[in-house]
């Protein structure tokens, strides 16, 4: 069985963001980078599927500059077998249709049985790439998955809907599955597996070899939203803050009456 999982390296969302000189993306300096949270669930599910079917090979694909190899090594340490790095120093300049085009171009002659992606990235958040890859490859796809089971080529999944409801769906592999938070419990790589990961294949391909489609949209401008909050901001010593807040609650609400 051949499995692919697509991951993205994103900044920690708690970072202090700045706008870059071009005014169309955030500045990439002074940020801590990590694996897109949704993709951690995708990697875990890919590895669990491999462990279940035994005879399987998991390729982890990531597009970006050399620094994304650090994130790929985490996926390899979690249990992926090989890394396919698409070298691109301007990955933030590619819109979702191009990203999906690159992945589909890589995957088109490799006959993957299941392709996992996160349901969206934490930075751009378009939620398009996984489904577009499926459309480009002519495969069925199921998005926003919080439960995944595989048996003899049949996938049974649960999609998360609004209000805590789940939709139970069936689809036949080959298929693309996009993973929602909470799908599983992503494992922490162990030290022996981190050492083993260093010896796993991690091949780079220049992006121009795989990018065959043109952008359909562009970012005109990136900026900070205007603060709507007319709310009061309290700062200072915690004891004083607590007294102040209690006074406000007594004045504005009935809960302390």
């Amino acid at each position, binding site marked *: 069985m051949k499995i692919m999982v697509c991951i993205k390296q994103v900044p920690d969302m708690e970072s202090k963001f700045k706008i870059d000189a071009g005014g169309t993306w955030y500045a990439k300096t002074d940020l801590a980078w990590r694996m897109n949270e949704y993709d951690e669930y995708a990697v875990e599910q890919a590895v669990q599927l491999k462990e279940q079917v035994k005879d399987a090979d998991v390729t982890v694909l990531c597009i970006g500059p050399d620094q994304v190899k650090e994130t790929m090594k985490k996926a390899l340490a979690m249990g992926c077998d090989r890394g396919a790095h698409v070298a691109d120093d301007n990955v933030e300049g590619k819109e979702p249709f191009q990203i999906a085009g690159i992945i589909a171009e890589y995957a088109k002659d490799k006959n993957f049985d299941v392709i996992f992606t996160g349901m969206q990235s934490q*930075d751009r958040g378009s939620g398009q790439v996984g489904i577009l890859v499926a459309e480009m490859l002519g495969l069925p796809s199921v998005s926003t998955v919080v439960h995944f089971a595989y048996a003899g080529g049949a996938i049974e999944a649960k*999609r998360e809907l609004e209000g*805590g409801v*789940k939709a139970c769906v069936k689809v036949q592999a080959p298929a693309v599955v996009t993973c929602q938070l909470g799908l599983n419990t992503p494992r922490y790589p162990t030290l022996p597996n981190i050492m083993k990961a260093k010896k796993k294949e991690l091949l780079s391909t220049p992006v121009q070899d795989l990018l065959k489609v043109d952008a359909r949209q562009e*970012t005109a*401008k990136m900026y900070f*939203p205007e603060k709507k*909050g007319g709310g009061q*901001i309290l700062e200072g010593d915690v004891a004083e803050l607590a007294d102040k807040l*209690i006074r406000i609650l007594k004045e504005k609400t009935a809960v302390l009456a």
Partner: protein
Amino acid sequence: MKILLIAESREGKLLGGSYELVAFAAKMNAESVMFLVGSDSVLPKYDGKVYLADAASAGEYNPDTHKQLILDVVGKENPDMIALCHSSYGWDLAPRIAYALKAAQVSEVVGVVDGVPVVPVCNSKLRRDVKAKTAKTVVTLQAGAFGLSEEPSGTPAVEKVSGAAAGRVQLTGYEQAATGGVDLGKAQVIVSAGRGIGKPENIAMIAGLAKALGGEYGASRPVVDAEWAEHNRQVGTTGQTVAPKLYVACGISGAIQHLAGMKKSEFIVAVNTDRDAPIGDVADVLVVADLKQFVPVLTEKIQAL
């Protein structure tokens, strides 16, 4: 400009987001027509044409089939834009339609400035103006971004559509949220824990403050996913929508999915170390402090009242 609105129904009910599509078309000063997979009994109040496919044959979730039905309507109406809700139905269907129409898709639109869609980036910390380069565009709208200014009204002109082939993904049923245990909807005060609590042991601190205030404790999605709290305590789009007299958000940055579940609370207090956190946009009071120091002190002082 003409917009095709893709309304939604589930388990025989029209979903509220369908009216936000109508509000969006009004905001765009655009002509609109609607497509809905549903039935005669779930028609929207809408003064326009509705292309109606029968959910009994087309299925409520059946992306291949719904895509084909929508493409047939696009063929008849030739809209400039196709608008869906940024929902589990909309974000699943939109890329399929965009791909088939060779159209750009702009996801999770929160506003439109001079005709240019605006979308959030990085957990709503940033915004992006997006320019489509294609003749047609597909957009998904963030829930609540385009509210109706008045009660929906009107009677649609219905044209039935059918005939698409069966799809490859089969919906076999729904699983309802587990019920029982705590009912946050009844609580007058909710104190919620976010990722900022740092470790599961700190749930007790949040529960302690909730008890001192005579309320219940809730949690944001990451806390529930980490199994630090039960799902029936989750506040947000995929959990419960609440509107207590007092909502205290501790260590919750304010992802849109969480805000959607609590922003109608009467009074909102946020405790966060980051004064730029999006939760500040809905909070009446933002306490800039480390909750691990602040919450125990506050709890003690309230208990002493």
